[in-house]
C-alpha cells in the first residue's frame, strides 16, 4: 500500500507534540516545582539542590536536549494547533469545550511566562557567566527580589497556574488521544485524578512563591572541599 509520506509526517509530528507534553516537558515541570518547593523547608536544602543541578556534567547539553528543544517543539506545534482550531465555547457552552479553549489559552500564557522566567533566571545566569557554585547565590538573589513586588508575585502566580492547569488538563488529553482512557466513566474519573494532581502542583508552586516573599534570605556560595 502506497501512502503519501506527508500524512505519516503529520501523524508523527502531532503524536510527538502530545508525547513531548508529558516527557520531557511535563516531567520537567513536576521535577522543577518539586525541587523549588524545597525552599519551603529551608534555604539550605534549596541551595543544595541548585548546587547539585549546576554541577551536573554536560549541563548545557542536557538543558538543550531534554528541555529547550522539546519545549520549543511543543510550543511551535502548539501554536500551529491553536491556529487550526476555532473556539466556539460561547455558542456551545459545555464544560469540555471550555477546557478545550483554556488548554490553548494557558499554553500561550505559559509560553509568554517562560520567556520572562527564563530571561530573569537562566538567561541572566548565562549572560553573567555564573556557573557551578556561583549560580545558587546569584539566582537566589534575583528570586528574593522578584517576589518582593506584587507585580512579581502576580506574574509568577499566573505563570504557575497556567503551567499546572495546562499540564494537568494536558495529561487528561494525552490519555484520551492515545486511547488510555476510553469509556465515559474512565474519562471522568481520570479528569478527577488529574485535577487533584493539578491542585497539588499549584499548591507546591504557590507555597514556594509565598516562602520567597516572606523570607528573602540571601546565601553565600558553597565552598567546595
Amino acid at each position, binding site marked *: 500500500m502506497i501512502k503519501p509520506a506527508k500524512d505519516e509526517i503529520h501523524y508523527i509530528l502531532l503524536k510527538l507534540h502530545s508525547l513531548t507534553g508529558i516527557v520531557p516537558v511535563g516531567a520537567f515541570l513536576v521535577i522543577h516545582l518539586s525541587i523549588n518547593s524545597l525552599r519551603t523547608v529551608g534555604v539550605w536544602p534549596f541551595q543544595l539542590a541548585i548546587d547539585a543541578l549546576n554541577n551536573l556534567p554536560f549541563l548545557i547539553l542536557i538543558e538543550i536536549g531534554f528541555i529547550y528543544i522539546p519545549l520549543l517543539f511543543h510550543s511551535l506545534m502548539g501554536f500551529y494547533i491553536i491556529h487550526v482550531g476555532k473556539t466556539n465555547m460561547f455558542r456551545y457552552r*459545555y464544560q*469540555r469545550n471550555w477546557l478545550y479553549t483554556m488548554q490553548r489559552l494557558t499554553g500561550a500564557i505559559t509560553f509568554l511566562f517562560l520567556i520572562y522566567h527564563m530571561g530573569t533566571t537562566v538567561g541572566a545566569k548565562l549572560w553573567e557567566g555564573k556557573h557551578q557554585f556561583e549560580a545558587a547565590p546569584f539566582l537566589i538573589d534575583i528570586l528574593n527580589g522578584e517576589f518582593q513586588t506584587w507585580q512579581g508575585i502576580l506574574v509568577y502566580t499566573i505563570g504557575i497556574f497556567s503551567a499546572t492547569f495546562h499540564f494537568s488538563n494536558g495529561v487528561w*488529553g494525552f490519555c484520551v*488521544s*492515545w*486511547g488510555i482512557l*476510553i*469509556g*465515559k466513566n474512565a474519562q471522568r474519573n481520570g479528569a478527577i485524578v488529574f485535577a487533584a494532581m493539578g491542585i497539588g502542583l499549584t499548591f507546591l508552586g504557590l507555597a514556594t512563591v509565598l516562602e520567597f516573599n516572606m523570607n528573602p534570605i540571601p546565601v553565600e556560595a558553597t565552598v567546595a572541599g
Partner: protein
Amino acid sequence: MTDKKINFKIKRQDKPGLPSYWQNFQVPYKPFANIISCLMEIQRNPTTKAGITVAPVTWDCNCLEEVCGSCTMVINGKVRQACTALVDNLEQPIALEPMSKFPVVRDLQVNRSRMFENLKKVKAWIDIDGSHDIGEGAIMPDSDRAKRYVMSECMTCGCCLEACPQFSLNNSFMGAATFNQVRLFNLHPAGSMNKEERLDAVMGEGGITDCGNAQVCVEVCPKNIPLTESIADIGRQTSWQFIKNLLVK
C-alpha cells in the same frame, strides 16, 4: 388564537458563492408546529414580514422523524434537526441558518458530500462479495452487537462536525462521525479484515490526531452516539497501528 403569529428570521443565499442576507417572515400559529411545517407555510405564501413577495425559502428534509439527518440546520444558534424542533419550545423570532461548515447550495440547503467522501476514504462498509464463495461470517459476541448498534445509528447529519471547533470549511478534518464509522466497522468480525486500511486512512492530515478533545460532538449528536468513546478507541487502535507500522513493516 387565530391571529397569533410565529416570527422567523431566516438567513438566505441565492446561489453558492453569493453573499447571504437575512429576511423576516411571519406564519400563522398552529399548536405543535415544527420548523418544517412552518417552512412549508412560507413556501405556500413566500411573503416577508414587510409584505414583499420573494422566492420561496428552500430546505432539505425527508423522513420527518429524525432518522435521515437531511433537515439539519442551525436553529437559534444551535445545530439540530428542523423536523423535531418544535416551535412551542423555541424563543422567537426563531433564527434559521444553514450549517456554516458545509458549502451552501441555496438558503438552508447545504452540500454534505464531504462526509460521504470521508466514508469512502475509511471504507465504511464490509466486503462480502468475492469471485468465489467466501463462506459464512464469523459469530459476533452480543456485547459487540449492542455496542455496534448504538454506533450504527449515525445518520450522517453533520451536527457533530458543525459544532466541532476543529472542523472548518477550509480544512480537511474528518470529524467524529467518520472516526465512529471506523470503530463500527473495525468491531465487526468480517469488517475487521480491513481494519488496517481504515486506520491508515485516519492517520494523516485531518485524521484522528487533529481532534482536540473539546467533546462538543458528543453533546450535540442527536443519536446520542458515544462519539468521544469512539474517538478514544480509534486513538488507541491507531497508536498500536503506528507502533506496528514502525516495528513490523
